[in-house]
Every structure is written in C-alpha cells, then in structure tokens.
C-alpha cells in the first residue's frame, strides 16, 4: 500500500495499465452494446425499455464504487498523509459525479414509461440524489480555500461523513418500502436476471469499470503535474 503511494512508482505502474484498461473498455463497450441493443431479448414485462438497464445499472454501480474508493482515499489522506490519495480523490470526483448524473438521468428515462413518473422521493432515489450532491459539494469545497491543503482536508472530511450514504443507497430498497425494486444481481440467492440479459449487463459493467480506470489514470497524471507546477511556481516566487 505504502509502496504505491510513491507518485513516481505509481505513474510507472499506471502508465503500463493505461493501454490495457482503455483496450478492455473499448472491447467490452462494443460487445456490450451489441448484446444489449441487438442480440438480447426484450423483457417479458418491460419490453425494450429493459435495455436502459445496461446503462443505468453500470452507472449506478460505478457511482457507488467511485465514491467508496474516494472515501478510502480520504481516510488514507487524513491518517497517513499520502499525497497520492488526495490527488486520486480529486481526479475521481468528476467521474463519479458523471456516473451519478447518468444513473439519475437514465433512471428517470426508464421510470417515465414504466412506473408512470420521472421522479419520486423514495429512499433509493433520494439517497442517490444526495450522493450526486456529495460529489458536487466535494468538488466545490476542495477549491473553496486559498490554501489547497486546507481545501483538501475539508474535502476529505466531507467524503468520510458522506460515506454513511453508501450503505443507505445499497440497502434502501430493503430497509424501507420504495418504488424502486430490490437488487437483481448482488443479492442473496443469486441474480434474478435471465442469462441472456445478465451478459450484456456484466459486459457493460466491465466496460464502465475499465473506462473509469483509464480516465482516472489520465486525471491523476494531470493532478500530479498540476502539483508540480504549483511547487515550481512557489519556488520561483520565493
């Protein structure tokens, strides 16, 4: 763990991973889109709207995955003062916000024809909206201080406080009556999705996941370079 916190070593590994992640993402997107849009059957109840699932569910998973990793990074930054942890959290935040926005938007587009409403304030939808605001709040907060160190610290605390929302999102559909249905894949007793629909879903999930890794590596590189620019400028000024 500490080993990877060295930015130089991290960059060496990340640059080696980058082409593989990008390639895997491209391949899985092609396969997932083909299976999802062309080769998979419509649902017996929901017809072709079920194809929205192949975007909606991976986006939802990634919105929670991204936030969870950011919260872990925030803890590492607060306890061990890893410089890389803060760079990671900042790099991942816009991606997480993007996934969450996509999840909310596609959910709305799915709910309108099927549920009969674009939006309801049930526990699942509301907690995901809170997640979206946590991302936005974090991004605003880290930039709100003149001293970047203080901004990062405030952002890290917000990330950790907001982490309670992640299990709430996950279990909201079991703890409370919601309009949103319970989990179909990560549940006790196995998935309740027919194999012909589970495959495109999993392919798209891998595509989203590897897309995230590829883009977050680019963003971490940019973040590390920006830190370097900052130190150089400080050195010139001093």
């Amino acid at each position, binding site marked *: 763990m*500490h080993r990877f*916190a*060295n*930015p*130089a070593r*991290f*960059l*060496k590994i990340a*640059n080696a991973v980058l082409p593989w992640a990008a390639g895997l993402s491209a391949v899985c997107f092609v396969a997932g*889109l083909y299976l999802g*849009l*062309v080769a998979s059957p*419509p649902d017996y109840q929901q*017809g*072709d*709207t079920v*194809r*929205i699932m192949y*975007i*909606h569910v991976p*986006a939802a998973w990634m919105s929670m995955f991204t936030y969870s990793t950011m919260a872990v990074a925030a803890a590492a930054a607060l306890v*061990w*003062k*890893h*410089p*890389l942890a803060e760079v990671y959290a900042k790099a991942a935040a*816009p*991606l997480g916000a*993007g*996934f969450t*926005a*996509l999840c909310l*938007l*596609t959910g709305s*587009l*799915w709910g*309108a*024809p099927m549920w009969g409403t674009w939006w309801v304030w049930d526990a699942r939808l509301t907690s995901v909206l809170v997640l979206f605001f946590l991302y936005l709040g974090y991004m605003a907060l880290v930039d709100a201080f003149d001293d970047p160190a203080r901004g990062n610290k405030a952002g890290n605390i917000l990330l950790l406080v907001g982490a309670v929302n992640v299990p709430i999102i996950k279990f909201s559909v079991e703890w409370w009556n919601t309009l949103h249905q319970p989990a179909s894949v990560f549940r006790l007793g196995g998935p309740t999705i027919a194999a012909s629909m589970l495959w495109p879903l999993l392919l798209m999930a891998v595509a989203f996941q590897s*897309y995230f890794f590829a*883009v977050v590596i*680019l*963003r971490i*590189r*940019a973040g*590390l*370079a*920006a*830190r*370097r*620019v900052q*130190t*150089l*400028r400080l*050195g*010139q000024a001093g």
Partner: protein
Amino acid sequence: MDGFLSMGGYAAYVWSSYGAAALVLVGLLVLSLTGLRRVERTLATLEAAKPRRKREPKVGPVPTASPATETAP
C-alpha cells in the same frame, strides 16, 4: 432495422439513455485529455525556464512525478 430503431415504441427513452451515456463518457474523456495536455504544456515551459537545480534529473514531460519533492514518508 425499423424494429431495432423503434425499440418497441420506447425509442425516445432508450435512445436518449444511450445518447446521454455517450455524451457523459466521451465528454469526460475529452475534458480529461485536454486538461492533461494543458497542464503538461505548462509544466514543460516552467521546467525549461527554471534555472537548473542539481537534484533534478531531466526526464520526459509525461512522468512528472518529481520523486524528490513528493515522496511519501
């Protein structure tokens, strides 16, 4: 082909979802790439203008990690 495009009458909902996904994912990728290029250019000019310091071995513009200043304890 017609059936494929009409998505059983739900074309507007299905295709907007995929369109939104393309927009968000491609948009974030493009923003990240342009951001990276911009900061790497700034860094290159700064490092070129900087008076040589002894402990900085010159490496390519990409792995700019500067281990000397940023190594974790």
